[in-house]
């Protein structure tokens, strides 16, 4: 039998990662939670599911040393997957909570939805994603719907980073970004039923 890819999920103590863990397991990975950067050494891929407020997330990443691990991992172009706040944290800064410096792995900033009345924030529910046709793991998935829940979104400074776009309230925002083997989604694949798990399964083929 073929060996399952080993996938480390960063657990910096902000909450429940059960769905993320089960999602990756269902997609075919030998997935496990890691609480210390030392534990990622044996992993083939790194997953960063951000949770809570960005300021708390960043201070916990710095405290645990995961900030360095993430930067080094992506700099070496090893397979990486960020989810929700795990996408936003990759950028240089976020305006959440009055402003917060982030990991600065990708150029650009994270901004809040400013929409006309009638459009609710958070952007919550299932929305479609237009994927860039040349990204291997989303081939054939253009227009699929995924589950979102967020009030902020990333505005990449480099348009080449945009992997997928989603429209909400007249704003077309980067709902997925990619560079090399670094991938990140604003939506939650682990909450997006079969389409989400398919995306995880495809990502595992990069390993």
């Amino acid at each position: 039998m073929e060996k399952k890819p080993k996938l480390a999920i960063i657990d910096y103590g902000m909450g429940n990662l059960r769905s993320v863990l089960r999602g990756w397991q269902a997609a075919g990975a030998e997935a496990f939670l890691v609480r210390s950067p030392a534990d990622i050494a044996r992993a083939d891929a790194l997953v960063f599911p951000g949770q809570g407020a960005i300021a708390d997330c960043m201070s916990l990443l710095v405290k645990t040393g995961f900030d360095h691990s993430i930067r080094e991992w992506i700099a070496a172009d090893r397979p990486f997957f960020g989810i929700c706040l795990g996408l936003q944290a990759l950028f240089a800064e976020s305006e959440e909570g009055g402003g917060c410096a982030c990991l600065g792995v990708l150029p650009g900033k994270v901004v809040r939805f400013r929409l006309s009345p009638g459009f609710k924030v958070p952007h919550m529910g299932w929305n479609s994603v237009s994927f860039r046709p040349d990204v291997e793991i989303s081939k054939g998935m253009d227009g699929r719907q995924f589950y979102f829940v967020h009030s902020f979104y990333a505005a990449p400074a480099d348009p080449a980073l945009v992997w997928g776009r989603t429209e909400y309230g007249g704003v077309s925002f980067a709902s997925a970004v990619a560079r090399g083997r670094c991938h990140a989604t604003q939506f939650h694949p682990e909450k997006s039923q079969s389409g989400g798990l398919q995306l995880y399964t495809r990502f595992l083929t990069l390993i």
Partner: protein
Amino acid sequence: MLSVRVIPCLDVNKGRVVKGVNFVDLIDAGDPVLAAKAYEKQGADELVFLDITASSEGRGIMRDVVARTADQCFMPVTVGGGLRSSEDIRAMLNAGADKVSLNTAAVQNPDLVSDTSSFFGNQCIVVAIDAKRRKDADGWTVYTHGGRNDTGRDAVEWAREVVRRGAGEILLTSMDRDGTKDGYDLELTRAVSEAVEVPVIASGGVGNLQHLADGILKGRASAVLAASIFHFGTYTIAQAKDFLASQGIPVRRV
């Protein structure tokens, strides 16, 4: 385009679905995990579990139901009923719930909404508002304890306050309409939806598919919740979505 969410709600007592669920292919109509899986297959966009268990040992059973559901269903799950403290909330989120809904506890201790939404994130904290039309004047008041206690609070004002405190969503139930099959209280739904920035889920009174469409088009809700029309097999989730689509409402198909 963002789809309107269709959300079935399952009442759970001591780990069993109250009254059962009437799906032809379901082996055990009382098993909430099987019911959740069946709804996922039908294309439900989210799921709400309402725990009506009175005893504290029942809470442990509910956490187990949530954990087993989270292991098998890859869709958002909200759990409400009897959550009193931030410890209760943490335990339910750790079990695998994506959101918790607070009702009586929020009214008794509004700081619970502020504290838990800033710690766990606004998106985790839903405030459930049970509202009844005033007899003496215009408007609606908030009820707690499953509709038994009139708090005297104005429902629209209360919605504004909990959103200011950080609630990420409002689950709005008309106690006048709940169980009647006469449709949502559309005036109430619209008044609350237009008063707050966060999404409002319409609940209470659905008897047919037109009621769901009215909740969106006339009530301005972001999502529609129903229980009996789905449980008793009157309509499937897919039929509900076909109807909503025929009314020009964007829905997700599976």
